[in-house]
C-alpha cells in the first residue's frame, strides 16, 4: 500500500477546510493575520491564492513555526483542473512525511476575483468527479467547514453594481464579515443599507462587524457544517450550472484560465531595484489613481523607500481608496526589491509602467516637469469629460425642441434673406 495513504488512514478525523473569500482589497489578509495571532489557531495551514504572476500576499501574512502556508499564483477558480485538491493533497503529503508539518485545519484565502462555484464543487463530496489517488485522499481526509466572505463597507455598493463575482461570493457565504466599518468615508455608518442589500442576496448568513466590540475572529472560522442547500436557490443553481459547463468541451485549459474573468480584467506586476523617495511614491499614487480612476481595481506592494531601505512600506490601494502606507520593521524575506502588483479593468499596463519610470527614474528637474505634464494631461481629460457631459446635458432639450417644432411654411422660408 502506498506509504502516505497508509499514514493518512491512520488518522481518523477529517481536517476542516474553511474558505475565506471577498472582493479585491476587502481586507482578507488582515483577517488572516488577526486570526493567526490567536493561539487557538495554532496548527493551521493557510493556502493563499493570488491573481498575479508575482506573489506578495504570502509576505504580508505573518506565519510563525506553528503554521504552514502554501501560496498559489493564478486564480484558483480559473484552473480547469482541480487545483484546490492538488494543494490539499500536497499539504497532506508534506505532513505525512514530516510530523513537524502536521496541521489540524486549513484556511483557503481566495483571490478577490474568485468565482466560488468551481471551488465548492471540488470540495463538496459528490459534486465533481473523483480521479485517482489524489482526489480519493482529499475526499477522505478533508471536509468543507465553512465559507467566510469579507465585505468592504466603504466600497461594497459600487462593487456590487460592477462585479458579478462580488455578488456570488456573498451568496455562497455562511458567515459574512463587514470590514472597514470604522473608516470615516463610510457613507452608511450603521451599515443598515448594506445589511439590507446583503440580506437580499443571502438571507441566512450571519453578518458580523469586524469592528464590533464583541467580534471574535476565532469563532468566525470555527469549523462547522457547510450545506449548499442552505445557501439558497441561486447557489444550488450556480453549482449545477458549473458542473454542466465543466462537462462541456472547452478550448485549451490555459486559454480558459485566461478568459474566465474576461479579457478586460488583467493583472500585471513589476519590480524595481533602486530605493524610491517617499515623495515620489506619493506622487506616483496620486497620478495613478487620478489617471486610472475606476480602472484600477487593486494595487498592493512592498516598497523599498530611500529614507530607510531596511524598513519597507506596505501599500494597499482599493479602487479609489489609497490606504496610508504601513511601515514594516523589516523585510519579510531576502527579496528586498520594490514589488508592485496591480489588478486592473481595461487599463493600459504600459502607461502605468511608464508613469512609474518617469517618476522614479529621471533626474529631479525632468521629473518635476513630467509630473506637471502628467497631472495636466489628467486634468485636461477631466475638464474635457466635464465639458462633454455639460454639452450633452444642455443639448438634449434643444434636440427635443427641434423635433417637436412645427414645420416652417414655404412662405415663411421665402422671407428669409
Amino acid at each position, binding site marked *: 500500500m502506498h506509504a502516505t495513504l497508509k499514514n493518512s488512514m491512520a488518522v481518523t478525523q477529517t481536517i476542516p477546510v474553511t474558505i475565506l473569500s471577498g472582493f479585491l482589497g476587502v481586507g482578507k489578509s488582515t483577517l488572516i493575520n488577526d486570526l493567526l495571532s490567536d493561539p487557538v489557531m495554532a496548527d493551521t495551514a493557510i493556502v493563499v491564492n493570488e491573481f498575479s504572476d508575482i506573489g506578495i500576499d504570502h509576505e504580508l501574512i505573518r506565519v510563525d513555526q506553528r503554521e504552514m502556508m502554501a501560496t498559489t499564483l493564478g486564480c484558483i477558480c480559473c484552473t480547469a483542473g482541480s487545483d484546490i485538491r492538488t494543494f490539499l493533497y500536497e499539504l497532506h503529503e508534506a505532513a505525512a512525511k514530516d510530523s513537524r508539518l502536521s496541521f489540524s485545519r486549513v484556511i483557503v484565502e481566495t483571490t478577490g476575483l474568485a468565482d466560488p462555484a468551481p471551488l465548492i464543487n471540488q470540495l463538496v463530496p459528490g459534486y465533481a468527479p473523483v480521479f485517482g489517488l489524489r482526489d480519493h485522499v482529499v475526499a477522505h481526509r478533508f471536509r468543507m467547514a465553512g465559507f467566510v466572505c469579507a465585505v468592504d463597507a466603504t466600497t461594497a455598493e459600487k462593487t456590487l453594481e460592477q462585479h*458579478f463575482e462580488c455578488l456570488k461570493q456573498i451568496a455562497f457565504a455562511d458567515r459574512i464579515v463587514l470590514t472597514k466599518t470604522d473608516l470615516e468615508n463610510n457613507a452608511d455608518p450603521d451599515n443598515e443599507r448594506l445589511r439590507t*442589500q446583503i440580506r437580499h442576496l443571502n438571507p441566512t448568513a450571519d453578518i458580523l462587524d469586524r469592528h464590533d466590540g464583541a467580534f471574535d475572529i476565532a469563532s468566525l472560522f470555527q469549523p462547522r457544517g457547510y450545506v449548499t442547500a442552505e445557501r439558497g436557490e441561486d447557489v444550488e443553481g450556480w453549482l449545477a450550472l458549473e458542473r454542466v459547463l465543466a462537462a462541456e468541451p472547452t478550448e485549451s485549459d490555459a486559454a480558459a484560465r485566461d478568459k*474566465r474573468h474576461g479579457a478586460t480584467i488583467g493583472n500585471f506586476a513589476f519590480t524595481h531595484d533602486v530605493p524610491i523617495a517617499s515623495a515620489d511614491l506619493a506622487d506616483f499614487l496620486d497620478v495613478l489613481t487620478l489617471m486610472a480612476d475606476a480602472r484600477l481595481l487593486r494595487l498592493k506592494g512592498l516598497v523599498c523607500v530611500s529614507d530607510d531601505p531596511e524598513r519597507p512600506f506596505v501599500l494597499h490601494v482599493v479602487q479609489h481608496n489609497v490606504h496610508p502606507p504601513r511601515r514594516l520593521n523589516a523585510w519579510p524575506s531576502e527579496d528586498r526589491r520594490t514589488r508592485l502588483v496591480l489588478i486592473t479593468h481595461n487599463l493600459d499596463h504600459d502607461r502605468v509602467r511608464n508613469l512609474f519610470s518617469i517618476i522614479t527614474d529621471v533626474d529631479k528637474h525632468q521629473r518635476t516637469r513630467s509630473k506637471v505634464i502628467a497631472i495636466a494631461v489628467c486634468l485636461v481629460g477631466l475638464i474635457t469629460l466635464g465639458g462633454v457631459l455639460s454639452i450633452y446635458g444642455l443639448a438634449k432639450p434643444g434636440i427635443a425642441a427641434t423635433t417637436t417644432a412645427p414645420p416652417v411654411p414655404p412662405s415663411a422660408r421665402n422671407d428669409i434673406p
Partner: protein
Amino acid sequence: MNGGFVNPLARRRAPGYPEAIDRLKAATREQLHLSNDIVISVTELACREPGCPDVETIIAILTVDKKPRMIRFRKRIVEIDGSELAAALRETES
C-alpha cells in the same frame, strides 16, 4: 443624514447585478410559464468559445432529471434588456 455636497455631474446610480438578475429571472419565469419549483440560474462567465466576446451571460432553467435549458447572451447580465430576453426566450420555445 448625509448632508454632503451632491455632484450634479455625477453618474446616476445604474441598476446593479442584484436588480438585473431578479428582473431576468422574473421575466423568464413569466414568459415560459414556469412553476416556482423550477430553478432559474443566471450567471456571468467568460465565454469559452474561441472568437466570442470575453463575457457571456447564461440563463439556465434547471429541472430535476432533465437536461438544463440554457439561453446565452454575449454580454454582461446588466446589459440584457427585456426585448432581447423576450426574443431569445421565444426562440427557445420554437
